[in-house]
């Protein structure tokens, strides 16, 4: 039965890779397939296909969905109030004579954007102005895209919706997820800076180049007040410094953004418009989280657990050293929607590792967070990579080649950290 489930998973990966099925649909189909192979009954109160997998599984990540929605709302506000654009413009105005300063500044803004929201919306927040601005001061287009992506990924360990996702998906308390993420952040931050410095040390590149079909930069919305520029810090300071729960932390960020940028009479309209836009932005990840919830419920079914645990236990390295070597070598499997992509089949794999008791919960969180650092930057099929690369005028695969040596180091660092601390 275990082999049959693995074959089904391989077929699922193939369907996602070849884009025959969107990831969310493929994962939901996998959940159903695994439940059927596991011999789960169609109906029943618990562990059945209709109730256990479809009904309960769909809402397993409900808290994550709310966090993603609020993150998207705040991201939309950063855009609509001009906070994101102002941050980048100020960096160009203040540091434009030195390409390295501009690149490091955009990298820092990208971290802030990445700590609020993820995927393409985060890349757009920092990149719409940041990418052409970096190219204008002499960065190569591939490096400009890579700088934004490395920044967003470095912000990912501080992204509250990601904490909630790890917590919901793996059943870990948020406090434990936070501990792992805070320790991962310095690695992503330092390697990100190294990427920027290596790229800028190659010397400024100037070109007589004509952009034929680059999307027009968005209409400038005017400068946001300087004190509003602290908005991205509000949720993370509350969550990290004052251990405020995730939802109120994000809500505080929303309120701060609104109050510091919007006239009293316009508050309601702006709040409502940006919230509705936030729903649009959050729709793709929420659809994915519904499917991932079903998949997690399916791999936790008694039949699936019994079938998969011995296989996964047999192939999972037990010593910390082999843990690092094997899982670092498997990094490419989180790319191209591969089986270790935590926002895909990787969530199911993580679920098996946890429910089977193969590794401690925190180790699985560290492992998946490490893969997320690679996937978030280098996967040429992820929306942020595709958007940033194409906006810079390069192929996503070139962006992958530029960033992968660095993100692999981040992933490796995360795994070493995980092995040392939690195994």
């Amino acid at each position, binding site marked *: 039965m275990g082999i049959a489930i693995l074959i089904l998973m391989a077929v699922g990966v193939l369907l996602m890779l070849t884009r025959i099925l969107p990831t969310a649909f493929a994962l939901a189909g996998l959940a159903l397939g695994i439940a059927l192979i596991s011999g789960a009954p169609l109906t029943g109160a618990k562990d059945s296909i209709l109730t256990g997998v479809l009904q309960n599984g769909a809402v397993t990540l409900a808290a994550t969905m709310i966090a993603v929605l609020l993150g998207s709302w705040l991201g939309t506000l950063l855009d609509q109030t001009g906070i994101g654009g102002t941050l*980048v413009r100020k960096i160009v*105005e*203040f540091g*434009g004579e030195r390409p390295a300063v501009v690149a490091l500044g955009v990298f820092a803004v990208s971290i802030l954007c990445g700590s609020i929201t993820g995927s393409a919306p985060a890349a757009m927040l920092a990149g*719409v102005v940041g990418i052409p*601005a970096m190219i204008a001061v002499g960065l190569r287009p591939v490096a400009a895209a890579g700088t934004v992506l490395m920044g967003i990924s470095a912000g990912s360990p501080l992204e509250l919706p990601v904490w909630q996702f790890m917590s919901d998906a793996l059943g870990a308390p948020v406090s434990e997820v936070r501990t792992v993420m805070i320790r991962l952040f310095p690695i992503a931050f330092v390697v990100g800076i190294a990427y920027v410095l290596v790229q800028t040390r190659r010397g400024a590149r100037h070109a007589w180049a004509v952009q034929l079909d680059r999307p027009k930069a968005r209409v400038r919305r005017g400068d946001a007040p300087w004190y509003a520029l602290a908005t991205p810090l509000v949720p993370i300071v509350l969550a990290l410094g004052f251990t405020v729960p995730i939802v109120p932390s994000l809500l505080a960020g929303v309120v701060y953004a609104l109050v510091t940028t919007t006239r009293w009479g316009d508050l309601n309209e702006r709040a409502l418009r940006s919230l509705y836009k936030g729903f649009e932005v959050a729709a793709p990840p929420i659809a994915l989280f519904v499917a991932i919830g079903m998949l997690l419920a399916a791999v936790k079914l008694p039949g699936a657990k019994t079938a998969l645990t011995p296989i996964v236990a047999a192939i999972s390295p037990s010593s910390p050293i082999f843990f690092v070597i094997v899982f670092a070598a498997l990094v490419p499997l989180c790319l191209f929607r591969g089986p270790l992509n935590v926002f895909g089949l990787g969530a199911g794999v993580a679920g098996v590792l946890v429910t089977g008791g193969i590794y401690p919960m925190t180790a699985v969180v560290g492992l998946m967070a490490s893969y997320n650092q690679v996937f978030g930057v280098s996967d040429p099929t992820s929306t942020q990579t595709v958007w940033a690369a194409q906006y810079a005028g390069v192929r996503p695969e070139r962006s992958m080649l530029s960033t992968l040596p660095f993100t692999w180091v981040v992933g490796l660092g995360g795994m070493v950290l995980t092995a040392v601390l939690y195994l």
Partner: protein
Amino acid sequence: MNDLELAVELLRDTPTHENRTGEQLRSWAQTALEYGDELADTDMPVDIQVVEREGGVRKGELLLAEHQRGTVIVYTDALRRTEEVARERGWAVTRESLRRAAVAHEVAHHQLDVRELNRRLGHTARLGPFRLRGHVAGADEIAAHRFAHRRSGLAVSPLLLTAALAGRN
């Protein structure tokens, strides 16, 4: 459109300037063009290597030349494409003059002093209580285009050619 108007359009299309006033952009464009003129009149030794290569016609981008670490790469396929566009518009542009302009454009980037250009532009960047001399993105590109025009003897302005290639005129 004359060079000043084209330079204003170039600035307007550059991120960070979307909402600046026409008057402000015009003033900056004028200063940048004058700086390009001044640079072209200066007889500075040019220590630069020029190589030719194909590969400038890319998806979404036409790359005529680029400069990094003292080497200028001129993309011959992009020059051919530019020559075709110029011919369609009845402009007497030769491949050789285009090549000279492409090289001169990169030589300008090699020689121009961005700090000096920013000083002349006189832009002050502000963030709350902080005020510093600000950078004007795109101004160096205008100066480089003017320098290239003056040094290459190209029949039409590189600014006009760029706008034509981008389909803006």
